[in-house]
């Protein structure tokens, strides 16, 4: 991953996590796999960096972690989106949509 891509990813981490957690509650390892699979392997997180981000978002009240048992009996910390997280995600989606449309229109392929 280039530095430019890394910077983009850093700025979008919260939005990507909120988006996955909004679809269904999930735990750290599953979240990483989901992000990789949804982006066809493009988003490949350095796994340890995910936890400071998850804990920061929980601290900011965007998500909430709860220990729950898997069918096999092992416990995992599932993250749920909070109403505040839903608001934030909705706002970020609007911003991202406007931003990406604007960037696309500026960077449109040269004609001819």
């Amino acid at each position: 991953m280039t530095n430019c891509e890394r910077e983009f990813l850093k700025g979008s981490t919260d939005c990507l996590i909120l988006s996955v957690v909004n679809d269904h509650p999930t735990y750290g390892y599953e979240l990483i796999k989901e992000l990789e699979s949804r982006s066809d392997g493009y988003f490949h997180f350095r796994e340890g960096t995910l936890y400071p981000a998850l804990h920061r978002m929980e601290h900011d009240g965007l998500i909430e972690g709860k220990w729950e048992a898997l069918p096999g009996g092992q416990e995992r910390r599932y993250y749920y989106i909070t109403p505040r997280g839903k608001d934030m995600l909705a706002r970020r989606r609007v911003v991202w949509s406007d931003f990406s449309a604007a960037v696309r229109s500026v960077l449109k392929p040269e004609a001819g």
Partner: protein
Amino acid sequence: MTVMHKKLSDYVSSLCGGLRMDSRTREEIDREVRAHLEDHTNSLTRRGLSDDEASHRAIRSFGNPGIIARDLIVVHSQGSWKDAFLTSLPHLLVALLLTACYRHSFVCLLATVLVAGLGAHMAVSRRAPPWSFSWLGYCLVPVILAALLLLNATHWWTLLGIAYIPCAVLVVVYVVRQTASRDLLYVSLMLAPWAVITAWCIATQSFSGIRTGSLNAAGVHVYGRELVGSFVALAISSFVFARIRPRWGKALALIIPLAGVLGYVSLYCGQEMSLWGWLIAALAVLLVSIPTVREFRG
């Protein structure tokens, strides 16, 4: 324990061993990281990798434990607004107590005692949360005060002093060491009021009064507003300390008001302070600042 589990366990221990936070949060992080590494390792072994290779890869993709621990510390070092208020509360109570003494207000005194009792109960019942360290500093007051009183003891009190003073020193050293094992910055937070108390005791020449057991409140009446102002400044700095995320910011939040109080006492009470007195006050501020200075050195 298999080689795989030992490797994972060593890695988790190296990550969580560096976490300077309360034991409950540390245990949660330990469980979460361990679960993640086990999931990844199991997934790799299912794909045909050996246990050794799988655990090695899982650890490598998790990243540098020191950097992750540092990021987690930063995240968890920011207290909520409630934590910040509770961190600053003991200093506000002392300011209120001094106001009560200064203005002979029974209501202030009663309010101080009630809130102090409530705060102490909360600190004990919640397994020493970060805000409790600013209360802990004041909990040492009776221990140290009794030692100072026994320094000048006569008759059979001398024997009690000989037995008590080393015990008091041991208690203080134990509390400081326990706090340092949690986080060096909390040592400064805990001892900050002691630097202020020392500076004002020297300025108002109260040490001899304490030692002879004949302390009067004359100093409080002369410098009442300044004393209250010092503890309000300490309350504000503790509030900032609890709320701010970067550790260098926390360190500055503690050092600046202490230097300010020492500067004020030197400038405005200078004629009443001997050089030795000033040096002792400066030494107290320096001792309290050492853990934060070490923080800057990294």
